[in-house]
């Protein structure tokens, strides 16, 4: 359902969307059923002249089963949902597949800095490419990102990847994604971080291998003699 609003552009986006659909149908069934029963009861037992309400305590077993069985069924549904939720969570957040490339993401009031390791594939070397509010990644490549904050809490979110992780000052948080669809997408900050929170958007460019190589070659700062200080976040 979400995919109709927003493309799936990472290797795990469909998992979250499927989980959403699972919960939607399970929960939707219960919701429609209870509302239907609810409105039917209101209609069926509306006040009519000469008809007195029944005296039902609900303490008898034969009466109570009408709420006991549904509630056991809810428990069964819960188990399915828990299973689905934990599986997806494990795959995305707990499990960290080996990286093909590591990038660094630095949040500050109110901009993102993205550090690409450059041609040598290693961070903290002179050929790192630091870009503000602009992230270039290569499609079908497993990226690790390390999140750092210079001041307050931020949250790194790429909706098309279904990716979200808070950025905490004083901590370096690692996560991963594999882009699967080329294009240019939004990056958001979803944790309030002050006055400029609403402006703290960035763009992610998912590129093919050739495009990405060209971008790296074009932007690598070694030739620009920026080798003196590795960028940012060395506090």
């Amino acid at each position: 359902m979400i995919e109709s609003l927003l493309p799936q552009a990472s290797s795990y986006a469909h998992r979250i969307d499927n989980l959403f659909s699972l919960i939607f149908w399970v929960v939707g069934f219960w919701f429609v059923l209870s509302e239907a029963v609810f409105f039917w009861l209101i209609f069926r037992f509306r006040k009519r002249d000469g008809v007195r309400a029944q005296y039902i305590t609900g303490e008898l077993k034969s009466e109570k089963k009408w709420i006991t069985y549904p509630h056991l069924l809810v428990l069964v549904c819960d188990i399915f949902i828990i299973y689905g939720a934990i599986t997806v969570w494990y795959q995305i957040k707990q499990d960290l597949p080996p990286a093909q490339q590591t990038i660094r993401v630095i949040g500050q009031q109110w901009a993102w800095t993205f550090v690409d390791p450059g041609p040598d594939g290693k961070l903290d070397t002179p050929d790192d490419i630091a870009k503000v509010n602009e992230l270039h990644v290569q499609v079908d490549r497993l990226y690790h990102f390390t999140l750092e904050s210079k001041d307050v809490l931020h949250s790194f979110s790429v909706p098309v990847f279904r990716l979200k992780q808070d950025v905490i000052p004083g901590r370096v948080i690692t996560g991963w994604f594999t882009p699967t669809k080329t294009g240019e997408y939004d990056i958001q900050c979803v944790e309030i971080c002050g006055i400029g929170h609403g402006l703290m958007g960035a763009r992610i460019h998912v590129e093919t291998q050739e495009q990405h190589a060209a971008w790296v070659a074009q932007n690598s700062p070694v030739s620009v003699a920026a080798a003196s200080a590795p960028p940012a976040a060395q506090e």
Partner: protein
Amino acid sequence: MAESIQAHPHPHGGPHAHEEPGFFRKYFYSTDHKIIAMQYLFTGMAMALVAGFMSYAFRMQLAFPGMHVPLYGLVTPNRYNTLVTNHGAIMVFWVAMPVLLAGFANYLIPLMIGCDDMVFPKLNRLSYQIFFLSVLVLIASFVVPGGGFGGAWTSYPPLSSRGSFSLTPLGASMWLVAVALEFVAFLMGGINFVTTAMNSRAPGMRMYDVPIVVWMIVVASILFMASVGPLIAGAIMLFMDQNVGTAFFDPTRGGDPILWQHLFWFFGHPEVYVVLLPAIGITAEIITVFSRKKLFAYKTVLYTVFGTGVLSFTVWAHHQFIAGIDPRMANVFTITTLLISIPIAEMMFVYIATLYGGSITLATPMLWALAFIAEFLIGGVTGIFLGASGADIYFHDTYFVLAHFHYTFYPIAIIGTFAGVTYWFPKMFGRMMNDTLGKIHFWGTIIPFNFIFIPLFIFGMGGGHRRIYDFTNFPELVPLQKYNVIATCGLLVMLVFQPIFLFNFFRSLFRGPKAEKNPWKANTLEWTAESPPPHGNWPELPTVYRGPYEYSVPGRELDYWPQNAPN
């Protein structure tokens, strides 16, 4: 009204002071639980107008970015942050809490359990005075240099702890002080409610003869008292961080911002149930009266309340799934969060089952109560998406969350309040409200309400995230802007209908037809007192002979059987 806090007696008490206290003493300096309830109720409703106006200002900005909002002006980014922060904080702490917990608890507990007042009337008065002080501090925080606090009602440090980050050093501290004062007020109130309900029941009233709403308020007060402590400790620590220069939550000097999140949400989640339970209790009273039915499985309701209460202490970290907590903890909290759906679902089933075999009259209070169930179900089922950790990766801090908790808080704070006010209005003021106007107001509130928040669910599913003053900065969200426009239009329609309620309320207050003692033919004890009850409630305190929900008992001529009737 500020002077009401001063302790000087009314100057014009005069010779009548013995029988009839002066206006000031009677309405501003009273220890009578009913007057204090009214104070809470009116303060809460006034704050609801403030917070409602705030929502109008920022919803206009969201639908039509950069517009000069009529009656407000330009919504700049920092004003936007202040507006959303205080809208949230006011609606939770200064509307839902005072109206549902303090207002109805003060009014109903002594009347429903058959005693003359709260056990500690002076503590009760002090509680309101501190609460009122907290209102003043909060209002003052909007106008101090730098402006009101804009770091969201969760007030996460380091944004909230350092003036150089939030740019509202004074506003942030005053906001925190206001919240802390409010907690102190409700701790006093809570102790009073619980002690009164436990100790002062009328002779003959057994545990299972207590009306559900009193049980709910007691459990809510207990939840509040048991959960607010860590946040009070946290507020002290945050206040020191802001003003003394300590570093409890400052990661650059050895503190930890995640600690605050735990302290906050350890309170924050039970807080949802603190306001939910009174509303759900009010609903129970109303649907039994207007369907002339005994509550289905009274004891089961109590068990579900206890289950909800205990479980609510074990779920708080689902607010922090992607906040950098240990990912393994998320699994534990997913399980507990989904388990809490079981007692809540059962409670809803009980209410639906109560309608079976009834004789349902759709009077205004009943419409509100039924709407509470219908709308709260949406809030409940959408919570499952957010409690499931895997789906929450995507939904965290989107408008889906926002729509979800508005589908819980709106039924609680607004629908629950309207249900309670329209139901107990005859008792509170001795006059009847106009039913036709009440129904117009009902439909004019409920239908637009769904038009506000259902589009926001879709907007959130499309990636719309919270606390952004202008979504046109995000190219992916521009096509979804139409949902924001629909939501704002819904809000405007809803606001247009609210003066009808105010008109009905105040007109009925002075001009409404006189109410008899028991206009709804209800069983509970408050309906055996005069309308409105005098100081002391009854000339002779009642004795109780049976449970509160003995409607349509076979073999009796009347279809109700008051709790205090010997036979």
